[in-house]
């Protein structure tokens, strides 16, 4: 009692500071919105949290999400940690982010399996973006990267492509709006992006995907190529060779910045964490994880077993990136990617109209589709359809009820489709497999390589009638094509029945209840 009283007398504390209140100077918790590439650092952060007796929670988001979040207004989280400071500069117009410091650096590189690289002569010498483009377009290997409108590594690679292929950017020094109106340039970049066999929503997930599914090449951070190689070597598979394109390299500088909500204890905790990450000891541990140090004056002392020269990693190389275009050029380039240049997507939305969806479930589903089919909302989230995209909606309950198709992004047609989705009434049992089999069938008939296909299943229930998982896996092996099925959970949905579907089809089960836009963007980032 007395002790508590003493602690509560601020004048006493202030005048004499006799009582040790170490536990009271730091806040109890810190939330950080972070890029997915930092997932690997989670144990390190938790170690810090334990040592201080605090909790740190990471909320992983794409770079464009972080940019939008900052430009939308006050951010609730205590800190942001995107892959590149560009996204803070572009989004944070009200100067919310303070005390931002780069924690580590990693270049965005081209990675190709050793034998494929050797076959194509991409494993040595000076490699330009144009040589990579030719090889990708010729379809000489399977290639994956993240979506430029979802993830920093994809955006960085895409801006590098534009810079290197623009005949003018080389003479004017940097990509301009005039370049983005050059139809020759756009045709070249469209050709390159058309050679992408698989697009992913986040860099970390891309890394896992290429390891599991044996893709032959990707654009990703040097740090994540190292992680992929460690996994591949462990599995007895061929590792990637790292290629640093001379004319379109990008650096991720990984800034950790603070957002003040008036709580000085939070600030103290943030400062303690940031300072800890920048100590020579922790920087050395980051280097052991394949990151390059950013703490000033900390020399880069790579472990040759991590930064392996046999993987093509060059630790002595000066990393000389292409200049970042002006803000309005970056925004325009991202919009062009989404509506004109990316490989067109072919997406089937399987919407659950069983009886249990009536009411709030149905409303949430309609909201989700509104996000996609209302051009102004879709544009803000970089989810908009392109003129070449194909969209199907399959309404189902215990069987397929209706199938609607739409080509392109005409606003009247989108409105009409949304009206149908809104007014259709849920009733009946649930069979999620029949619509999925139909969806795979539809997408498989499109032919090879022209579209990025995906199925998005929105459901709240448990399949209890009709077809089963074996029917779906049978169809999957019959079509022999990689068409990911992303289940988005609504209402009471459980992942038990949905996880096997996403596992089978190289996708992810997403939760539409906590963050619908985020779930949608993750799914859409994949095609």
């Amino acid at each position: 009692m007395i002790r508590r009283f003493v602690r509560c007398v601020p004048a006493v504390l202030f005048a004499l500071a006799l009582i040790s209140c170490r536990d009271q100077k730091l806040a109890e918790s810190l939330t950080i919105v972070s890029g997915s590439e930092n997932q690997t650092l989670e144990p390190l952060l938790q170690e810090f949290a334990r040592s201080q007796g605090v909790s740190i929670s990471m909320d992983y988001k794409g770079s464009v999400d972080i940019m939008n979040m900052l430009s939308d207004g006050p951010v609730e989280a205590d800190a942001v940690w995107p892959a590149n400071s560009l996204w803070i500069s572009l989004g944070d117009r009200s100067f919310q982010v303070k005390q931002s410091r780069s924690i580590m650096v990693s270049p965005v590189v081209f990675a190709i399996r050793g034998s494929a690289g050797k076959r194509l002569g991409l494993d040595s010498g000076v490699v330009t973006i144009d040589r990579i483009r030719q090889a990708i377009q010729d379809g000489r290997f399977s290639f994956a990267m993240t979506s430029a409108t979802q993830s920093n590594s994809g955006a960085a690679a895409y801006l590098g492509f534009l810079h290197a292929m623009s005949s003018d950017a080389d003479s004017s020094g940097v990509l301009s709006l005039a370049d983005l109106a050059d139809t020759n340039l756009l045709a070249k970049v469209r050709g390159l992006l058309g050679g992408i066999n698989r697009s992913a929503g986040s860099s970390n997930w891309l890394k896992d995907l290429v390891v599991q599914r044996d893709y032959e090449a990707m654009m990703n951070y040097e740090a994540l190529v190292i992680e992929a190689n460690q996994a591949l070597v462990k599995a007895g598979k061929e590792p990637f060779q790292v290629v640093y394109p001379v004319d379109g390299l990008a650096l991720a500088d990984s800034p950790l910045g603070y957002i003040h909500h008036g709580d000085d204890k939070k600030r103290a905790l943030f400062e303690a964490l940031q300072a800890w990450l920048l100590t020579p000891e922790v920087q050395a541990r980051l280097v052991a994880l394949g990151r390059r140090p950013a703490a000033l004056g900390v020399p880069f002392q790579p472990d040759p077993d991590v930064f392996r020269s046999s993987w093509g990693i060059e630790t002595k190389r000066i990393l000389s990136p292409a200049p970042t275009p002006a803000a309005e050029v970056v925004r325009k380039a991202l919009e062009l990617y989404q509506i004109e240049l990316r490989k067109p997507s072919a997406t089937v939305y399987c919407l659950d109209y069983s009886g249990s969806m009536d009411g709030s479930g149905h409303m949430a589903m309609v909201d989700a589709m509104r996000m996609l089919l209302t051009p102004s909302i879709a544009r803000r989230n970089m989810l908009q359809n392109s003129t070449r995209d194909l969209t199907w909606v399959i309404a189902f309950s215990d069987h397929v009820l209706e199938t609607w198709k739409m080509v392109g992004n005409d606003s009247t047609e989108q409105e009409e489709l949304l009206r149908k989705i809104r007014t259709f009434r849920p009733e009946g049992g649930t069979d999620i497999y029949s619509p999925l089999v139909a969806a795979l069938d539809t997408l498989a008939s499109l032919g090879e390589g022209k579209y990025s296909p995906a199925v998005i299943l929105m459901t709240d229930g448990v399949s209890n009638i009709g077809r089963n998982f074996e029917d779906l896996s049978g169809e999957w092996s019959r079509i022999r094509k990689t068409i990911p099925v992303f289940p988005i959970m609504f209402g009471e949905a459980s992942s038990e029945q949905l996880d096997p579907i996403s596992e089978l089809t190289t996708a992810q089960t997403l939760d539409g209840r906590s963050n619908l836009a985020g779930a949608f963007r993750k799914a859409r980032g994949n095609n």
Partner: protein
Amino acid sequence: MSKQILGFLVFLAIALGAVWYKTQGNAPSRVVLRGLVGGEKAGFLRDEKVLDLLKGRYGIELDWSKAGSFEMVDAPSAGLDFLWPSSQTALEAFRVKNPDPNIKSDVIFNSPLVLFSWDIVVDALVKEKIVETREGTHWIVDFPRLAELVVGGRKWSDIGLANLYGRVNITTTDPALSNSGHMFVGLLSTVLQGDVVTDANVDSVLPRVVRTIKALGFMERSSGDLFLQYLNTGVGAKPIIAGYESQIVEFAIDNEKTWPSLRQTVRVMYPEPTVWSAHPLIALSPGGAKLLKALKDPDLQKIAWERHGFRTGIAEVRNDPERLSVLGIPERITRVVAMPEYRVMEKLVQAIQAP
């Protein structure tokens, strides 16, 4: 239990006594002054020694917020005691809007615009006879030729730096938002013109200045952010940037441990001539005038130089570079040009901003 209570009461008595004593010191009457300050001086105004001196000797406590130099002279000044921008041009803009001659102002500090670079780049520029090293200081003796390399779109490989991708460039902050970028545009146009740019000749130099700055693409808003990125991403990403001399001095002092290793490769280049970034304090109230006087205190000026790298704005104070651990800081900078007039600068900046 009773022992504890007794102990506590004794403790409380001592504590309250201490508080009472503290508030009964013989310091001069205290005043809290409110103002807006350019971000470069944040380190100086957070320095305990500075705060103690202001409070102990002058009874002044400060309640300040960061603001851009041009932003603060445009903002409503009701309730403020002082403004402390980082540019003479901002003071001019203020005087145009507030012609009251009773408002006092004085330049408290100066810092020259410098170019930060790296060992291999400076070596290449020495070979090109663009830079000359005298008594450890790297002087850009042929700025017109450096400017021509940049404006003419020459590549780093043209001056023997094949490891660096792309064109010779000097990265600056956005000249519309930040003073260091603004001053670099003033200096560059003067160098390209061969004389201070005026209304009469600005059109001849304008296209070249616009092309040069536009070639930089994305520009940071804050000199501090650009400086940290320069150090973080290194010679490959930021071969040369423009900034203030005070930045490197303050950094070296704040980072005693890491500075020795950075010093191996970090280089400061002094343009000949260069432009001064002046830090005039504008007193908006009697309290502000008191601060104006206090900041000229030789002890504060000494702290400003030795701990934060600001050269004095006061004639009788000497800045001794021996006191600093940063190599290559000259004692005096004698070749200085004036910035073009506010009107001319506005024309240049607007042309750079146009799409």
